[in-house]
């Protein structure tokens, strides 16, 4: 109360490229008003300086904006919370650390799925190399389109641009071979898939959260 500028923003570490900042500037001619509150806090009455609501009008209707500011879209929510819904983000929340802001902490515990699907525009292009080599290799040749007569459908049911099916569809033969070979040479095997499964679980949790928030 009493602030002329009202900013709605995420936490400093949460801005994932999709954070929303709404600043409402009160006009200079708005006079502050003084409200005398009843003695709920103490025996003596206290005066509290407040300002009128920001004079933001939508289409001339004179309706003040909603308290939560501009509503986030699903994609914006996913991008903004990508660092929270990850292994290292959870560790930071639980133990009060800030490992996700360091290079190696972010790389070891970052969520590769949301990092590639809901990062910057460059990250969306990177979808093809940000997924497990085994999954990519297996996915080659499988049906990745929706349709009545397709029996084998593989899709990541998340809204947004990019995503696994499109990336696979545009992957060249050289890329497929390189990633498949790299996966075999590295011998990452099951532990890699399980590490990716953890990220998938975090992504699902984040998606559920963002669906709840944006509705």
């Amino acid at each position, binding site marked *: 109360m009493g602030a002329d500028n009202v900013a709605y923003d995420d936490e400093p*570490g949460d*801005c*994932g*490229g999709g954070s929303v900042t709404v600043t409402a500037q009160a006009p200079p001619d708005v006079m502050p008003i003084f409200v005398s509150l009843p003695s709920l806090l103490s025996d003596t009455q206290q005066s509290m300086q407040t300002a009128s609501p920001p004079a933001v009008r939508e289409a001339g209707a004179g309706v003040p904006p909603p308290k939560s500011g501009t509503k986030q879209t699903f994609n914006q929510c996913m991008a903004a919370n*990508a*660092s929270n819904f*990850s*292994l*290292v*983000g*959870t*560790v*930071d929340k*639980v*133990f*009060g*650390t800030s*490992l*996700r*802001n*360091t*290079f*190696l*902490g*972010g*790389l*070891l*515990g*970052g*969520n*590769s799925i*949301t*990092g*590639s699907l809901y*990062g*910057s525009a*460059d*990250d969306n*292009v*990177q979808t093809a*190399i*940000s997924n497990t080599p085994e999954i990519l290799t297996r996915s080659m040749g499988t049906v990745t389109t929706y349709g009545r007569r397709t029996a084998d459908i593989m899709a990541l049911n998340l809204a947004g641009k990019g995503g696994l099916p499109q990336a696979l569809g545009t992957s060249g033969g050289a890329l497929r071979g390189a990633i498949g070979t790299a996966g075999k*040479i*590295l*011998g*990452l*095997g*099951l*532990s*890699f*898939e*399980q*590490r*990716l*499964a*953890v*990220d998938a679980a975090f992504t699902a949790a984040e998606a559920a959260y963002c669906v709840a928030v944006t509705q």
Partner: protein
Amino acid sequence: MQERREEPWFAKVGSILLLFACFGFIAGGMLRVSREGGASAVGWMMLVVGFVLTFATVNLWGRILPGVFGLAGINALTTLWSGHLINQPNVPVPRHVALILAVLLFSAAFLSSHLAIRQFNAVHRVLLLAVFSCLLIAMSANQFAIPGAVAVVACLFVLWRLPAPHRRNNTQV
């Protein structure tokens, strides 16, 4: 014949969570102890729990290191492409740092790939704890990222060159 005991799928997922819980306990404990000048009982308790947990479960988290390093290498490639830390567009990462980290992390993934099916003796455990310590130091500040990753690769190389310990009688084949 393989010296391999198949573990349930969820056990390996639990091992991944366990590794990061160990990081969290020790890093959080160190942070509290350093912030409050050694007077933080919670900090010391977190440190003790973290060290005990790390020592006691080295057989579990040691086997999932290839996956952790492998995905970190792919995250480093994403970082190399985008120029910022994965999930953190406000944290820029120099391209040469991302490239070096990608090479080191893929090397670590390759060198640790044998750990999933290997028995550990005391020397192996000591080296794995050294890997853990180096990772923790490397995760504590950006200037330690490359030296720490180099130390991790060095420890894993020694571990890779060590002869396999004697086979246990109760292993499944």
